[in-house]
């Protein structure tokens, strides 16, 4: 177990190195000049700025090695647009926002997916099944930005209906701000998990061990909880890793529409401004975060499902 974890972590470090290198190569092939501004500057100022960001050195190996060295020390440099803010500070301030939104969205998606999935399986081909599966189809086939815009519109209508603020329309700062955005963010994953849960439940209803349990005369509650639900959830957990990835990096749209100060929105703005250090820092940080998430989910899976041996 420990050896396995160690090995996975080592692989993770290598993967992060690869992500960092790929980001570095991609960013240094970006046409355009991050120091460009709408006011032309004198050569002396330009030289100073280049020295500040180390752009006066050779790209390889100097800049690459400095970049890697700084990264090992956990230092992503200074932002190009906000010239006295560290990328680390930016990540520290904005990532918790995205993470909070993401956690809530994953929770909504997972809980919703499991519950709706189980419900549809139990009511197979009856009205609840049909209604829920229709909603699932909507959730899968409508782009998220449409949901985001509709969600905000819905909030405005809701507040208008009650004549006072039931839930805030945009912004950040309380749990009321999170509800609708995280729901929108988790929607497509929820739909996907519902489908998965449904088919996995249906598969298990006919499995031998359920039959055996029934024949043994186990009480139905126990069968459902201990055998059916628990086993049906397993495949859902395997896809949670990628789902977390999709949700945390897919938060841009929701953050843009609901004016949420998350890292995703910051990234999109940094791209528009060609803010090299912020783009590289954010990409590598997200990459590392996802690698870690996948490892954690794998370990949890091994913990829950004794059939999987971690080696």
């Amino acid at each position, binding site marked *: 177990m420990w050896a396995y974890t160690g090995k996975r972590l080592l*692989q993770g470090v*290598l*993967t992060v190195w*690869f*992500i960092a290198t*790929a*980001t570095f190569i*991609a*960013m240094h*092939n*970006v*046409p*355009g000049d991050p120091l460009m501004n709408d006011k032309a500057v004198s050569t002396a100022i330009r030289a100073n700025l280049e020295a500040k960001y180390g752009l006066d050195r050779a790209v390889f190996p100097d800049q690459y090695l400095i970049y890697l060295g700084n990264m090992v020390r956990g230092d992503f440099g200074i932002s190009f647009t906000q010239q006295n803010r560290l990328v680390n500070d930016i990540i520290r301030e904005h990532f918790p926002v995205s993470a909070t939104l993401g956690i809530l969205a994953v929770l909504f998606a997972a809980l919703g997916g499991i519950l709706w999935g189980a419900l549809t399986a139990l009511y197979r081909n009856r009205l609840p099944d049909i209604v829920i599966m229709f909603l699932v*189809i*909507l959730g*899968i*086939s*409508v*782009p*998220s*930005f*449409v949901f985001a*815009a509709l969600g905000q*519109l819905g909030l405005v209508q809701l507040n208008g209906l009650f004549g006072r603020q039931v839930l805030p329309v945009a912004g950040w700062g309380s749990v009321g701000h999170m509800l609708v955005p995280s729901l929108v963010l988790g929607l497509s994953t929820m739909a996907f998990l519902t489908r998965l849960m449904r*088919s996995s439940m*249906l*598969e298990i209803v*006919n499995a031998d061990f359920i039959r055996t349990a029934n024949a043994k005369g186990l009480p139905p509650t126990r069968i459902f909880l201990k055998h059916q639900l628990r086993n049906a959830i397993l495949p859902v957990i395997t896809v949670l890793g990628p789902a977390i*990835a999709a949700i945390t*990096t*897919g938060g*841009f*749209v929701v953050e*843009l529409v609901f004016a949420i100060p998350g890292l995703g929105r910051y*990234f*999109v703005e940094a*791209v*528009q401004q*060609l803010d090299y250090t912020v*783009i590289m820092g*954010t*990409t590598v940080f*997200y*990459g590392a975060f*996802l*690698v870690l998430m*996948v490892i954690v989910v794998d370990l949890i899976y091994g913990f829950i499902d004794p059939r999987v041996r971690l080696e």
Partner: protein
Amino acid sequence: MAESTIATGSVKASDFAPLAAGRSAETISRPSLSYWQDAWRRLKDNRRALISLYIVVGLLLLTLVGPFIWTMDPALQDLDQVSQPPFADRSATIAAPYSSWDTSDVAPSADGLAVIEPPTSQSVRLSWESIPGSSGGYRIYRNIFPIGPERALGLPLGDVFGGAPRFFEDRLDLEPRTYYYSVVALDENQRETTAFLQRTIDVRRVITAKEAIDKGLAEDTLPVGAELRLTAHPLGTDYLGRDLLARLMHGARTSLFIGIFAPILYVLIGISVGSIAGFAGGRLDQLLMRFADFVVALPFLLFMIVFKIAFGIGPGESGIFPMLIAMVILLWPATARLVRGQILSIKNQGYVEASKLLGASSGYLIGRHMIPNTLGVILVTLTFAVPSAIFTEAFLSFIGMGVAPPTPSWGSMCNEGLKTMLTTPHELIFPALFISITVLAFNLLGDGLRDALDARMRSRE
């Protein structure tokens, strides 16, 4: 059951005579079904999958054949019909070409707010009586609603400063409808006073005789005042008056091109890498799979954006190819892993062992056993990959990192439509509907294919 058969049948001696030796004894009375025939049969039984298949074929026809039937140029801007919903009124009247208004010999109105010339979609020419206390001039407003107690006057069109003649010409986005104009007096600090005049004006849509000929609405010069109907747009027009149907069909080219070709390309690369790794094994396998692990770990959307700015889009380019390449670079490993896994499991199957013992070459093994047996899984992966590729394109277009205009794509059309969701919903509904239908069709088709192709993977629905 068994007993009754014996009871009803009458046994004859000839029944016990041996059959003549021949090949016919080996014949199976039911026709033998190949893997694909069987799959096709099962797919045909699945109504949802079959409908989806028809939809997919329909979409492809729309993309490939549609533009030959509905030949409207998707880039043609019909500024007389901007953001028109389907079945909007298309009538127009011929008018003289616009010429700028010379007010030098026109007497300003002495009685309320007056229209100097017949109001048309070219221009509305106003004049008004002098309002007491208007030392700073006048501000002209236009509303699409009658002015109620809120005194919301609508769009502030412009100011006429104190001392200037009391004329105003409105040319801003005039549509054939009723407008409520008002003129407010300004005090010496240019602040609005409470005094104002108002008037309801019905605007008629006009075009010039020359425009009518240019647009192919008339053969030769029509007289002023003649009635005609403007170009028909079955699904309405967008914010630049471009035909939505034509744009949807051309947008389908972009969206489906990315949606179908990107998956095909990366699945092909995935198959090659996966089969090499699976078949070769050992060091090469390790190396390739490690690399695949690395690539899988790259945060997908972030890298799509980074690649997009790294590749850049040159002048006149649509940016479809950079997007395609970025997708291929980032998405091949999933298929590679899948194919490798399949090949590894097939490699140990009895029939492959047997084949090997009988002296089959590697080429034969791959061609006869490996590929056909993995093809089903690959086809299913491919079908499911299409919707996610379409979504990716739409998503990138939404944050402005997608296909460059004027190339239409469903995603960018949605993005445009979203902004005017409340006033002209058709600009959002149609492209969103196309995305949804396509995604849904491919998803259901994928389900059907999975059920039909692989008994082991059958979902129990």
